[in-house]
């Protein structure tokens, strides 16, 4: 789209945070570079919070940033505990993958019973994701498997050392892992298949104060990001050029990653997002991540804000 550029004086400043290396959040730099934020009257500042998701969450809660893209599966627990953040939209799905070694008995979720599974953190969205999948496959994620924490890029080596038999995390880590260990690792599951197929995994997340005090800007940021997500979906190659600005890898490889995701799964907050959040909340409650006495519907209602009203 030929972006309409608002005059600089009209632009409202917002702080946008991300991890700086997550390809599944590509709509964020795309919105930045392709004028989506400006189109909606915003002047964004892009801030990177490396590593896990903890720092981004804390930055959002403390007002260092106003908006980010976050894993629903990761943020529901803090939300339950009263974290002052809200979901206002969603940008894509399908970026969590589960891997195991080729030629081993680990071929699907059900085969992971009694195994050790590598994750990047015991609170990582991928661990929550896999817990639910295991639960649905009749395996108790708390007692029937053992979770062990490794940096994502060391999963393959940990599997080789025999310390774990499978691992779960999000792209680009797992995508690159599979690519770099072609012939050794295989994908045995992921968010794009099975019960969560077609659901979004990454939501536009804003701080509660921001959406309450500046609802217009929060809505504008949400529109900018969801429109950018749609643009990424429609223009994977062009958007891979944006991604390449933030990646050491060449654009064609990044385009491949982008194509493997579901950037078409994007929408602003409405009934659909709230229902999805409720599904996740319910599942997380079943595997014990969320407390028994928490009502998933209630949590979903609290967690999402419909910017269209």
């Amino acid at each position, binding site marked *: 789209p030929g972006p309409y550029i608002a005059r600089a004086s009209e632009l409202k400043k917002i702080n946008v945070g991300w991890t700086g*290396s*997550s390809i599944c959040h590509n709509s964020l730099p795309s919105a930045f570079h392709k004028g989506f934020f400006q189109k909606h009257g915003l002047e964004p500042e892009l801030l990177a*919070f490396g590593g896990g998701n903890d720092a981004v969450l804390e930055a959002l*809660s403390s007002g260092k940033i106003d908006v980010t893209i976050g894993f629903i599966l990761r943020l529901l627990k803090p939300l339950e505990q009263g974290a002052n953040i809200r979901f206002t939209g969603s940008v894509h799905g399908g970026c969590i993958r589960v891997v195991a070694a080729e030629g081993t008995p680990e071929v699907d979720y059900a085969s992971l019973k009694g195994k050790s599974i590598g994750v990047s953190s015991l609170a990582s969205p991928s661990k929550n994701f896999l817990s639910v999948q295991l639960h649905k496959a009749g395996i108790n994620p708390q007692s029937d498997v053992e979770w062990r924490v490794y940096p994502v890029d060391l999963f393959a080596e940990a599997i080789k050392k025999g310390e774990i038999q499978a691992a779960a995390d999000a792209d680009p880590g797992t995508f690159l892992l599979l690519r770099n260990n072609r012939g050794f690792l295989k994908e045995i599951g992921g968010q794009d298949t099975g019960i969560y197929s077609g659901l979004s995994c990454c939501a536009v997340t804003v701080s509660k104060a921001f959406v309450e005090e500046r609802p217009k800007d929060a809505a504008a940021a949400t529109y900018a990001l969801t429109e950018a997500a749609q643009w990424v979906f429609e223009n994977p190659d062009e958007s891979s050029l944006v991604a390449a600005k933030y990646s*050491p890898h060449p654009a064609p490889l990044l385009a491949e990653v982008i194509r493997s995701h579901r950037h078409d799964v994007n929408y602003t907050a409405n009934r659909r997002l709230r229902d999805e959040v409720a599904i996740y909340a319910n599942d997380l409650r079943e595997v014990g991540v969320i407390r028994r006495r928490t009502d998933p519907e209630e949590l979903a209602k609290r967690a999402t804000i419909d910017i269209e009203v």
Partner: protein
Amino acid sequence: MSNHSAIETISTAEISPIKRASTLSANPELIYAAGAWAVSGVITLLWPNTQEFERTTDLAVLQWIFAALLLVVHVFRGQLAGLFRKLHYNAWRLVALAVLLSIWQVASAKLGLWPQPYFPPPQGVLDAYIKDYVRLADSIRASLILLFFGVGLGALAGFLTGLSTGWSPRVGYWTIPFLRLFGPVPATALIPIVLFVFPTSFSGGAFLVALATWFPVAVLTWSGVSSVDSSYYDVARTLGAKERFLLLKVAIPATLPHLFVGLFMALGGAISVLVVAEMLGVKAGLGFYLDWAQGWAAYGHLYGALIVMAVLFSGVTTLLFFVRDRVLVGQSGGVQW
């Protein structure tokens, strides 16, 4: 600081005490080094790679250029005496470096013993530098700025804390338990608090670095102040010195050697905290760069940044010791670097 090792001090006995200014010996060590680098270049270029690696030729050329430079220095050692002495002293280290480089080259690119892409060959690192030098330069600048502010503030605060703790028992009553409990807290654990308390991420990051600096500087300044020889105070008091003079002209100078040990410790701590602090909403920084490169499984970039870090931080530490040697004339002893 004199770099005497113990054996040198002893062996002045065995060697004749009058040492002739060492002549520019024509010993061939530098030629060996040049040869080693030339050979390593040959290995790089002529031994076929197991898979395609960019910049293989460039690397070989660079290795040869370096070999040629060594040779030039050897031939023109008369004109380049200073440089020659330095390189000549380091000749065997240069040989070792060439050998290590070749082992790395052969194990990764030539025989494929080391798994790819986790251990890219040297040309992979070269490639990262060439492709990404702008971002890397930005990161170096950002890290140095953060380090400068963090260490500066932390050292100042630590110095004042240590000084007042050592000087006044009243202050010590409050600061000592505080130091004991909060000094050893790992900086990472404080990230949530820091994010809430500080207005910007930069100030938060600088605070984390400052905190890591504060603790060792405070402890060692405190030790320094309370171990000042009391006769130093006696001398000044009989000559009419007031409290202020005792503090500024006796306690502080006498404490400086301890302070520098503290700063040395602090620098080490600050550097490891830097990596964490740079995950807090920064746009560049070596810690951020490392995390980013690891997130993208871009190992050429990762090792490239590691090498830069090693050189940079070693340089910063050397700078600290340089300053110390200027400041601490006459106060012998101290940490070696």
